[in-house]
Every structure is written in structure tokens, then in C-alpha cells.
């Protein structure tokens, strides 16, 4: 059993869709979901059998694709696969009422996205990373513009332009690396990178920062995010915030830890992250469109993860991984619930929550928001606590205060929504939620609670993972 399957299977599925499409739309949907379930099974199999490996698919010795499965990359693979599986399961029930246009293409795209994201995490070759970077990008552009409404297209165009610019900087960096080091393998680059002259190191770092900065949604480079979230369909936003960003984040810091193991720019990145968080939350304060609001909240959370990763010590990375998990689960819950609300109310203004008549959805939204806020008993708190704890150990009081201030602002707008949901009297008719949706949403909320109440179930694994990530096994 090979880790290549994680990339190959979705891609294979994607290219075989025309054949499957012959058997009807349902076939595509169910086969895709089954395939993802199988991938999930593979992932857990690897996890349980400790099947961590380095796998080379060589063309000729310097050329080739090498996949590295470690505890940390497997964590991300599992995260992506399970998010995608849940997404598909959710969509299977959702599509009976409001399917996407041209469904088989949609399944190609989400599987391509999955393949590319997993590829980003697994591959240890910088050019492969570029390729997967682009594949993930392209599928994301199309997904974002998928509804073909003018706002969706606008989102797609903006996403595409920024993505294209990002890729230029990335390839520039890769070009420089190749010119000065002469290799594309991460391990070899890591060995030689320290020996480069400072200016070159700086230039490459900045180019990488800009290239990935667009994708990891860091402050001056994240203006497109809110538009994209707002323009894209609600369900797809769950993928954007739970998979795409996370993959880029992992890759960026993976590269950072490899290239700059001594944390040369650590302080700068921490400040950048904290400032991004603050800026995003402040921007969210005046937001009334729900999708856009949660886009800002995503920006904030991602910036928090960024800060934690940038701290470059095991505890902080453990914390970052906690937040990654908690944020993915919470955002899935939120966007899944919002999709139902949007279908019913045909509006995404925050005022619609006032007329939301479904206690179940209200509670789900609430739990997810509380988790995002980092309220104790929910998963988000563990991550936030650990981040702040490691910041406190480093004595970085200003950063702590920036993060806390950002959380406060976040709390202000979340509780505005909570106020809409829990104090209003004018409700519409009861919003019926199918049992399948209920199960998935309840599962997500339960997961948040379980992680929040019993973080020690995960902490051991995450600690190992963070040690590996920092150690930079390539």
C-alpha cells in the first residue's frame, strides 16, 4: 500500500469521471464518496500500523517525486480526507434539494482539490510543491466561480489574479533556489540553504513569504479572501477554510523550518501573524454579511495558527495543530449550517439569523462560534491556551495582548450574532434539517466538545507530530 494512492486515487477518479458519467450522475457522486471513504480507511490504516515512510517515485535520481509520510503529514492527510468525506456525505443529502450545476465536473474539482492538497503536504520536492500549489489553486478558482453568477465570477477572477501573482513569486523563489543550490529536493536544499549569502537567503525568504503569503492569507496579502468567501457557494467555503489554507500553511512552515531552522525571522513573523489577526478581526467588526464575516474570522484564526507556527517551538506547533483541527471542524460546522440557512432564507445578511427557527442549527452555530472564540470546554480553547502559554513562556506580552484584543473584537461580533439568534422573537417557519445533516453537524459539534474537554486524548500524538515537524524530516 503506497502513500501515492492518496494523490493518485482522486486524480484517477477525476479523469475517469467521463466514463462514470455514463452511468448517471448518482454514480459519480456515490463512487466519489466511496473513494474518499476508502482513502479515509487507508489513512487510518496507516496511522494504526505506524506506516510512516518515505517513498520515491524516481524518474532519474535527481528527478523524481518523493512522498514523505510522517506523523504530522499523516495528520494533515487525515484531516483533509475526513473533511472531504464529510463534505461529500453532507453534499449527498444536500444535492437532492439543491444540486450544483454540472455535478460530475464538481466532483472532479473537489477530488482534484483533495489530491493537490494531499500532494502539497506529502511531497518533499519543491517543484512538485509548485505543481500541486497550482493544481490546488486552479481547482479552487473554478470551485469559487462555480455558480457562474456575477459575484461568483468576480470572486473567481480575483482569486485567480492573486493566485497567479502568488505563483510567480513562488516560482521565482524556486528558480533562485535552483540557481544557487542546484537541487529541488527539500532535504538537499535544507542542507545547503544555511550556507547561502545572507542577501540571497533574505531574497528567497521574502519571495517565498510573498508567494505563500497570498495563500496563507497573511496581512497585506489577504484582501482577496473576503470577496472569494462571499462570492463562492457556502458549502465550498468549508473546503477553503478547512483544507486549502491548512495545506498551504503546513507547506509554508514546513519549508520555513527546513530552510531556517534557527528561526531567523521568527520574531518578525510572529508580529506579522498577530497583526494580521488583529487587522482581520477589526475588519470583521463592521461586517454584516455572514459569509464575509466568517471569512474575516478565518483570516483571524489562520493568522493565529501562523503566529503559533512562527514561534518555532514544539509546544507552539502543538498548539497550532490543535487550532488547525478545531478551526477546521468549527468552520465546517458553521458553513454547513449556513448552507442550510441560505437555502431556506435566500439571504446571508446577519439579520437573517433573527428569523432562524431551528434550535438545532442555532446551537450548532453557537458551539462552533464559541469554539472559534476559544471559550473553555470547546476545542478552540485548548489551542489558544497553548499558544498564549508558549508566548508567555517566551515573555512576549505585547503579542499576547494583540491576540487577546483580537479575540475580544472577535467575541464582539460573534456575540452580536448570538444575540440575533437567541433574543429575537420574530421567527419564520421551522427550518427542517434532515437526519443526515443533523448527524453530521452533531458529530462536528460533539467533536469540538470532546477535544475541548479531553485534549489529552490528542495531545500526545500532536506533540510527537510537532517535534517531527520542527525537526524537519524530509
Amino acid at each position, binding site marked *: 500500500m503506497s502513500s501515492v494512492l492518496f494523490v493518485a486515487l482522486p486524480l484517477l477518479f477525476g479523469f475517469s469521471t467521463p466514463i462514470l458519467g455514463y452511468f448517471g450522475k448518482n454514480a459519480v457522486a456515490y463512487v466519489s464518496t466511496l473513494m474518499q471513504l476508502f482513502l479515509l480507511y487507508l489513512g487510518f490504516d496507516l496511522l494504526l500500523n505506524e506506516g510512516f515512510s518515505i517513498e520515491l517515485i524516481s524518474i532519474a535520481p535527481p528527478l523524481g517525486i518523493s512522498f514523505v509520510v510522517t506523523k504530522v503529514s499523516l495528520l494533515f492527510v487525515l484531516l483533509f480526507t475526513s473533511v472531504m468525506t464529510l463534505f461529500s456525505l453532507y453534499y449527498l443529502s444536500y444535492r437532492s434539494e439543491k444540486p450544483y450545476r454540472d455535478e460530475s465536473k464538481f466532483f472532479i474539482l473537489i477530488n482534484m482539490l483533495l489530491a493537490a492538497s494531499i500532494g502539497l503536504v506529502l511531497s518533499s520536492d519543491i517543484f512538485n510543491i509548485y505543481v500541486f500549489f497550482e493544481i490546488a489553486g486552479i481547482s479552487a478558482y473554478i470551485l469559487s466561480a462555480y455558480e457562474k453568477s456575477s459575484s461568483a465570477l468576480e470572486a473567481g477572477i*480575483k482569486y485567480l*489574479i492573486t493566485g497567479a*501573482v502568488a505563483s510567480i513569486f513562488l516560482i521565482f523563489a524556486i528558480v533562485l533556489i535552483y540557481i544557487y543550490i542546484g537541487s529541488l529536493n527539500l532535504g538537499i536544499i535544507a542542507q545547503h540553504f544555511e550556507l547561502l549569502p545572507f542577501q540571497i537567503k*533574505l531574497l528567497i525568504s*521574502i519571495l517565498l513569504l*510573498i508567494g505563500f503569503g497570498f495563500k496563507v492569507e497573511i*496581512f*497585506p*496579502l489577504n*484582501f*482577496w479572501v*473576503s*470577496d472569494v468567501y462571499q462570492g463562492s457557494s457556502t458549502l465550498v467555503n468549508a473546503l477553503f477554510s478547512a483544507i486549502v489554507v491548512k495545506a498551504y500553511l503546513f507547506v509554508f512552515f514546513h519549508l520555513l523550518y527546513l530552510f531556517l531552522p534557527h528561526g531567523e*525571522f521568527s520574531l*518578525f513573523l510572529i508580529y506579522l501573524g498577530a497583526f494580521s489577526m488583529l*487587522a482581520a478581526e*477589526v*475588519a*470583521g*467588526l*463592521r*461586517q454584516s454579511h455572514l459569509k464575509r464575516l466568517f471569512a*474575516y474570522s478565518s483570516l483571524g484564526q489562520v493568522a493565529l495558527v501562523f503566529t503559533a507556527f512562527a514561534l518555532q517551538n514544539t*509546544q507552539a506547533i*502543538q498548539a497550532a495543530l490543535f487550532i488547525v483541527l478545531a478551526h477546521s471542524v468549527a468552520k465546517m460546522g458553521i458553513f454547513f449550517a449556513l448552507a442550510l440557512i441560505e437555502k431556506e432564507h435566500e439571504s446571508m445578511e446577519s439579520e437573517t439569523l433573527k428569523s432562524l427557527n431551528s434550535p438545532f442549527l442555532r446551537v450548532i452555530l453557537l458551539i462552533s462560534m*464559541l469554539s472559534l472564540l476559544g*471559550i*473553555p*470546554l470547546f476545542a478552540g*480553547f*485548548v489551542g489558544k*491556551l*497553548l499558544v*498564549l*502559554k508558549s*508566548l*508567555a*513562556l517566551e*515573555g512576549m*506580552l505585547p503579542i*499576547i*495582548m494583540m491576540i*487577546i*484584543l483580537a*479575540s*475580544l*473584537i472577535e*467575541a*464582539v461580533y460573534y*456575540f*452580536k450574532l*448570538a*444575540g*440575533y439568534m*437567541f*433574543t429575537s422573537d420574530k421567527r419564520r417557519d421551522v427550518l427542517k434539517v434532515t437526519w443526515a445533516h443533523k448527524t453530521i453537524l452533531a458529530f462536528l459539534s460533539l467533536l469540538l466538545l470532546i477535544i475541548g474537554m*479531553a485534549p*489529552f486524548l490528542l*495531545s500526545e500524538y500532536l*506533540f510527537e507530530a510537532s517535534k517531527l515537524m520542527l525537526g524537519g524530516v524530509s
Partner: protein
Amino acid sequence: MMINLSNYALGHIVLALEMSHLANFFAVLILLSMGTLLFLVKNYALPKSFYALSALLSTSLFLIVYAADYLLFFIGWEVMSITTYFLLSFSVSQKTLHKYIIFAMSSALALFIAILMIYSTQQSFLYSDARESFELMGEFQGVFFLVLILFAIFVKLGVIGFHYWLVDAYEEAHDIFTAFLSAVLSKMGVYALIILVVKVTQPMLALAIIGVMTSIIATFKAIQEDSVKRVLAYSSIAQLGYIVTVLGVADGMSGALYHSLIHTAVKLLLFINIAGVIYMTGRDKFSQLGGLIYKMPQSFVLLLIGIIVLAGMPPLGGFSSKFLIYSALLDTKYLLLLSGVMFSSASAFLYIYKLIYGVYLGHPSHKKLESAKEVSLSFLLPQYLLAFILITLGTFPALIVPYINEILLESSLTTLSFTHAGELISAFAQFNGLIVMSAFGTIFVLVVIFFVSTRSKAKEAKNRFDIAYCGEEPDESTHLHYGYSMGKELARVGILRAIIKNSSSHFYEYLGKQTLSFAELFRKIYSGKLSVNFNIAILFLLLLLWGSLR
């Protein structure tokens, strides 16, 4: 008894629970409030979630009380804040709710920063290491730490300047929950003050001064209010001001603890009483109430006991705690502060009288009040229980001194001397509650006997309009209820006008507006033209490059 929870925690954080005497004391307050308020529950059709949230709230309160480390304390604190939010959301308007949560979250997050500061010095959240950690901090850090902690606590206590949320929340909350807010949640602030400040630092004069200012200003604010619950809310603030004051001086703990107990009991009594009135009449403003004394005589007597305690009058329990507070201040020679406290205490008589006059005395201000009847036993029973406690504590003021002494011993403070339950002995003076009570009682009975037996017979007035009214004959259209405008003329006094008319709300509204326009700026940037954004990005990156190269 200490329970170590480190097996279940993350990383290297040690968590622990401890059953100290102090914790038990506050747990008793929680239990007292819950026990008495449970009587009321069946009168209201409360949703199931109310009970669930209340259970969660109580759990968090016990977590706060029994935690032996800052992290568990913080978890309890935050869960308490959030649960309170949802309990408030049953009846409170959106604006108030929003005000509440902003303050509550600010408080919780400030607390979070502070405990992280404590943690960063010794890598421990435990209370037992806190004092040392605090001493290890630099001077600036220490001050900053105190400012954060005090901010967090002051918000919960509603110290003047931070009470913007409190009064509205108290007014609009469900009647049962208002009682709980005032009786218990504010006590958590007191507990936090003891745990986080008093036990960590030296006595702080600044704290005492803030406490006095709070009690004075809140008292004058209370006098101006028309809503019963708002008056009680301000009164809570003022009473907590006394506690803050006395915690700011050395050896003030006994007074603070005693007053916490008294305040919990009396505020429960008053809020339950007012809940009964609101339940019966559906009105909660002085201008809409009045003249209920002969409709609800038992409630009236109970409220009377409540206000005597609130005023700190000698025969009842209120005086015992005030006495300890005064003694502590006198003992530490904070004479001006003591006069401030006594001044505020004397000013309180006005709103205290308004409280009973506006509701029970005078004339009914509306015909609807005719249907008012005595409230049911479920309202009266808890009030009788509380009144019994308060009278007992007035008669035997030293009854709880042995328990307070154990708490003081535990914190290695000087204890109060104790002879018998009737005599309360402070560092400065003593008084015998039993004698005061029996002297007053005996004299009262004798005067009644004398008075009843005099030759002149008291005849009942024909009806409530049979009053000396300058020869005029008032009728229902005459405004005879004076409760509404009581104390309004104070605003004409120059010095008091400054207190009464100024409000922190202007500041907070200004702050909110500025924050929002700042947010608007960022929102505009985020929703701006793509090319502009690119330019901003380029500028930022150039700046960054320049900065890095330097």
C-alpha cells in the same frame, strides 16, 4: 483537601482543586442563593434550557470557588460569563446583552493575560506559587498585572466606571436571575479579589479609595433611579464598594467576608421581595407602584427587615458587618476613607426609604394595583428564611466569627477574638448585639403597651383620601404618590450634580463609536479595489524589506 489534576492536563500544566475554608464560605453563599431561589422557580414558566444553563452556571461557580490554580479559575470564570450571557438572553434586550458580553469578555480576557503573566514567571498556575511569582515580576509588570486583574474584577463587581453593563443587565434580567446576579455573581468578584489580589499583594490604598468612590457615586446614582431593580442594582454596586474598600486595608478580610454574607442574604431577600411585587402587579417602577402595604403586609414586613439590614441599622445583621468594616478602617487610621464610607452609608437612607415608600407606602398610583394580593408561600418562605438569618446575625453577631476565624487563620491573618455569640469584638471596639436587640425589643413592647392603654383612642381614617390636604378633597385623579420624584432635587446641588449628571456611558459610547469607525477603515481596505490592495501590499512589503535590511 487538595486534588491534583495534572494527570488529565496538557503539557506541563499542573491543575488542582482545593477545599479551603474560604472556598467553603463562598460555596455556602452559592448554595444559600440557589436554595432560596429554587423556591421561586415554580411560579414562572421557565424554559428547560434555563435550568440546564443554571446547572452549568452553578458548576462553573463551584469550579471558580474550589479551583486551586488560576487556569481552572479562569475556565470557571469564562464559563460563568458565557452562561450568564445566555441566561440573560431570555429576557434582556439585545443592546444590553451586547454591552454585557463586551464587558464580560474584556474582563475574562484581561484575567487571561494576567494569569499568563503569572505563569510566565514561574511556569505554574498554582495559587501557592502566585505570591512568589508576583514578587518575581518587574515593577512595571507587577503594576500592569494588578491593573489587568483589577479591571477584570471591577467589571464583575460593577465598580463605578465599569458598571455600564451592570445596571441595565440587572434591570432587564429575569427576576430570579437578577437576584442570583446580585447575590452570587458579584460575590465571585469579591472572591476573585481575595484570591488574586489580597492574597498576592500588600494591602492597597488605591483599592480602598476606589471602593469608597464607588459606594458614594453609586449611592447617588441609585437615588435618582425610578426603576426598583435599577435602584437595587446601584445599591449592590455601593455595597460591593464597601467590600472593595475594606479589602484594600490591612485586616479587612473579616469585614469583607461578613459583609459578603450579609449582602448575599439581604439582596436575595430584597430581590425575591421585588420579584413577588412584580409577579403580582407586573410593574417595576416607583412611579407605577405604591400603597401595597395593606395588600401585601407580609411582604412589607419582610422588605422592612431587608431595608433595615441594607441600611446597616443596629438591631439587625447589617450593622454587624458594617461595624467590622468601620473598625478595620478606624484601626488602620484611614479616617477620611471611613468618613467617606459612613457618608455613603448615610446617603443610602434616601434610596432605602424610597425603596419601601415607593413600593409599599404612599398611595397606589394605579387602579390596577387593586388586584394585588399577598404573594404565595413560595415567595414568602425563602424570605422568611433569609429574614431569620439576618435577625439571628443581628442578635448574635459573633455567631459566624469562629468560621471566619478559620478562614483568617488559613490566610495567616489576625483573627477576631470571640467570647460568646452575642458579642462581636473587633480590633477597635465591641458591641453586644443581644443586648441591643433585647433592649430595643423590650422598650418597643413597653411603648406599645403604654400607647395602646392611653385614654385617647385611635380611629381609622375613613379611606385613603382622608388626609390633611389643605382643606382640599383629593380623589383618584390627584397625584398623591410622591415616590417618583424622591431625591430629584439633589441634582440642584452643585457638588452632587457633577456626580449625578455625569456618566461613564458617554465615554463608552464614544469609545465604541471610535472603534467602529476604525473598524470601518479596515473594512474599507478589505473591500477596496484590487489594484489599491496590491499597491498597499507592495508598499507594506517594501517597508518590510527596508526594515529587514536594516
